[in-house]
């Protein structure tokens, strides 16, 4: 019996142990431990070339690479566009044109402004209203000799019926005159009507008038008037010197380009009232050039070139202005006040045209061929950073591999700043890393830069210190080879700064 009890106890204990008390779900949940983990990760792998920069830029800045690989930066201003409606806006038919006699000539274009020789209607409907004081029907034939289509003059027959009520009145149906051509020598239109009774007696109508809904033309030819389109107060933002701290630049051939694309068959002249450059220090200097006052005439398509767009570029450069001298004073913005003049000489003998798709576009751009020298220029920028999320990282060892293809020495340093701008630490040791200039070849190009490896140690204390940083101030100094003699260098598309950065983080879960 005693043995049985002992055996039962064993059996009970055994079964109990099976059924009990391992919280398997909890026991098998895996996480990180309180030990230190050393994690090696790549952070940055970049080769910053102008070619890559050019594809990533947007907004008003672009980099264009020439066939020879040379780079040019463009800063574009606002594009000004004017269409046909700006010169000859559609005219709504609020007031009918009276036809005061059986032959009546009405001036429809202001002779003081225009001399329209030919106009083709587009989207215009006309209709007529007649009244008769006689108690009988009238047959009316109306003709407009200047209005024709395919050689056929506009002519319509109407019957004005007497309905036992005087005056008898007729409002005709509407006639679309789309694609009908108005040919005039004196800006006027002639209405002729014949109104006769049944027995053929001519009658003068008590009322005759032409109504229209909207006068709009798809084509106008003649002297289309003198127009001024002010394009003032516009700016071109030049970001090239935004981060400048000290030192000087010398670009060989900066330019300001005015490009006009003109589909109007009319003379267009750009009159540059003012072109001023503002430096990053706030000084304001006017561009000086003989073309500033005389204006610049732009090409326009002839009658045999209807539908084509004529493009004219006018360039203010060092040969016709003081642009080089004032631009190198670290231009920040270029302000311009330009007027576009249509028929600038008011010469009414000039026969021109506008068509419904006509327009002109004016674009002002700053063009900086990257050819010049940089003399100890120091640039700076400040980035907002927040390292508080990395409080489980105890320390870090960074490994950087840098290379420089430019014909310039580049020095880099970055400072960690707290919220009050106080310096906490610096990224690179001593004065920072120095990337020597690439070796220059006789043709003034360079060999690819060699790689430089640096290790940056941030031990527990340093890493803990920079976790308080709120800003990272980056300072770079650039000095092209022989800059003291203003030796100019072209920048090619394949030049770049190589930066590879990896880190070994010592990580401990809190």
């Amino acid at each position, binding site marked *: 019996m005693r043995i049985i009890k002992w*055996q039962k106890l064993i059996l009970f204990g055994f079964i109990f142990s*099976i059924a009990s008390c391992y919280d*398997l779900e909890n026991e098998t949940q895996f996480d990180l431990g*309180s030990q230190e983990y050393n994690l090696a990760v790549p952070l940055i*792998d970049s080769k910053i070339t102008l070619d890559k920069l050019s594809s*990533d830029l947007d907004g008003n800045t672009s980099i264009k690479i020439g066939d020879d690989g040379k780079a040019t930066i463009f800063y574009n201003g606002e594009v000004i566009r004017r269409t046909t409606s700006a010169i000859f806006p559609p005219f709504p038919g609020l007031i009918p044109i009276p036809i005061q006699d059986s032959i009546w000539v009405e001036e429809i274009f202001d002779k003081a402004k225009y001399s329209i020789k030919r106009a083709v209607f587009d989207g215009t409907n006309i209709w007529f209203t007649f009244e008769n004081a006689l108690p009988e029907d009238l047959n009316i034939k109306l003709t407009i000799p200047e209005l024709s289509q395919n050689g056929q003059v506009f002519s319509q027959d109407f019957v004005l019926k007497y309905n036992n009520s005087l005056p008898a009145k007729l409002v005709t149906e509407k006639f679309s005159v789309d694609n009908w051509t108005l040919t005039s020598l004196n800006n006027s239109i002639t209405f002729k009507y014949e109104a006769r009774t049944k027995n053929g007696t001519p009658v003068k109508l008590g009322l005759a008038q032409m109504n229209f809904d909207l006068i709009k033309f798809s084509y106008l030819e003649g002297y289309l008037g003198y127009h001024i389109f002010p394009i003032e107060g516009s700016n071109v933002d030049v970001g090239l010197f935004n981060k400048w701290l000290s030192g000087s630049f010398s670009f060989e051939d900066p330019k300001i380009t005015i490009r006009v694309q003109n589909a109007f068959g009319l003379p267009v002249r750009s009159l540059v009232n003012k072109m001023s450059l503002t430096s990053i220090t706030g000084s304001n200097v006017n561009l000086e050039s003989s073309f500033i006052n005389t204006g610049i005439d732009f090409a326009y398509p002839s009658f045999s070139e209807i539908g084509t767009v004529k493009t004219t570029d006018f360039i203010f450069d060092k040969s016709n202005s003081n642009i080089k001298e004032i631009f190198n004073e670290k231009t920040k913005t270029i302000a311009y006040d330009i007027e576009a003049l249509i028929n600038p000489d008011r010469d009414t003998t000039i026969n021109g045209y506008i068509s419904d798709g006509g327009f002109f576009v004016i674009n002002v751009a700053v063009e900086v061929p990257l050819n010049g020298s940089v003399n100890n220029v120091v640039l700076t920028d400040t980035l907002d950073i927040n390292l508080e999320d990395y409080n489980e990282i105890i320390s870090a060892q960074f490994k950087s591999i840098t290379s420089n293809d430019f014909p310039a020495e580049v020095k880099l340093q970055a400072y960690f700043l707290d919220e009050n701008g106080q310096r906490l630490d610096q990224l690179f040791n001593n004065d920072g890393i120095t990337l020597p200039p690439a070796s220059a070849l006789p043709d003034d190009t360079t060999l690819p830069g060699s790689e430089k490896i640096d290790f940056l140690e941030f031990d527990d204390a340093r890493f803990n210190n920079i976790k308080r940083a709120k800003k990272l101030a980056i300072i770079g100094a650039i000095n092209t080879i022989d800059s003291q003699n203003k030796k100019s260098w072209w920048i090619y598309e394949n030049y770049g700064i190589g930066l590879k950065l*990896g880190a*070994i983080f010592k990580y401990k879960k809190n």
Partner: protein
Amino acid sequence: MRVILLFSFLFLLTFKSKAQDISLLNLHGQLPSTYLNPGLKVDKKFNLSLAGVNVLLGTDGPSINQITSKNSGGKRYIDIGKLDQNLEPYQNIFFNNDIHTIDVSLKVGNAMIMAGHAFRSTSNVRYPSGLVNIAAQGNAAFIGQTIEIAPYIDVNAYNEIYLGLQKSFGNLTIGAKGKLLYGVANIQTDKANIGFTTDDEIYQLSLQTDYEIRSSALLRYNSLDSITVDYSGFSFDNMFYNNQGFAFDLGASYSVNEKFTISASMLDIGKINWDFFPRKYTSKGNFSFDGVDILDLLVDSTSISIQDTLTDLLKVTEQIENYSTTLSGTYTLGANYLWGEKWRFSALLLYQKTNNASRNMFSVSAVRKISIFDLGVQYSITKNNFAGLGIFGKIKLGPISAFASTDNIIGAFKPFDARSASVRIGATFQI
């Protein structure tokens, strides 16, 4: 990394386990012994066995507590301080679970007809030592090296309905079972190669993958940090509709004399055709992360997350494609010796082949009959595990018997310290 580890150990949560062990040899004359060998002679005219449960968890590598500790949050982590032992290139964690809901046998003439149902599941996770080492300490210690991190994961859960026959020819008894199989859930790893490299230049990370894993009704992969495993354990899902298969058991026993019996069997020889949402996930190629391009940072107004980039690094394609899996075939050789009226000694040699691993086990046991009890000890040796000291107990009250056993008594109480832990329980009725 955590994801893979979690995934690897996820099946521990479903903990149930193994099929055949020496305790079945100790159930001589009773229906559960035919789980081990259908040719082991069953006594009486009618047998009924209910709710036989067998669970085994084991590893041929270190035990869980030998490589893990718990952090302050009570969660396990791989402890670098415990990794002083030399891990082999791969370790296996295996877990089997059989639930024999009902088995019946009826003697008809000279033959014993057997029938029954069981829910069975086998799982094996074969994990490389590189995965453990990286999870334990990070990848910085392996700069300039390529580390294999791909685990093999094989899970097979199915219902079986069998009909068997046992017949004696003199001292020889032969038995066979034919089984209709209905797969519940499966994962099969066909290829497992993921080389993880940390370059020594600026620690660029790359994965060289040739990984192929299939699953039906179990695994869904969306990304490295979004893997779902929907396993509900005992289930009749797909019964009679999908994932059908067939298998058989064959066995024989021979009574050399009244005291000594030898036996041999081959079990679970067959396969299942998986056609219920059979997904194949494949990753093949080289995937690398070299760092972020500063220009992307300047242009992209949204922040660029290195963590997200790493998570998205692995490219995996998904296909729906039927497939088949073979069962974990098991082969046994056994011997039984009756010493006097009270003692029975047994020995069992077992070989089991799974999809990506195999297991050998040699066991001996001694059982003494004490009144209504059979009490015994058993000892098993498997690869890297020589601590398999277990116990066996059975109580017989008239026609009703109940039994329980474990092949590792320490593991039964401390499963996370042991390399194996198993439990078998069941009840039979014999008349």
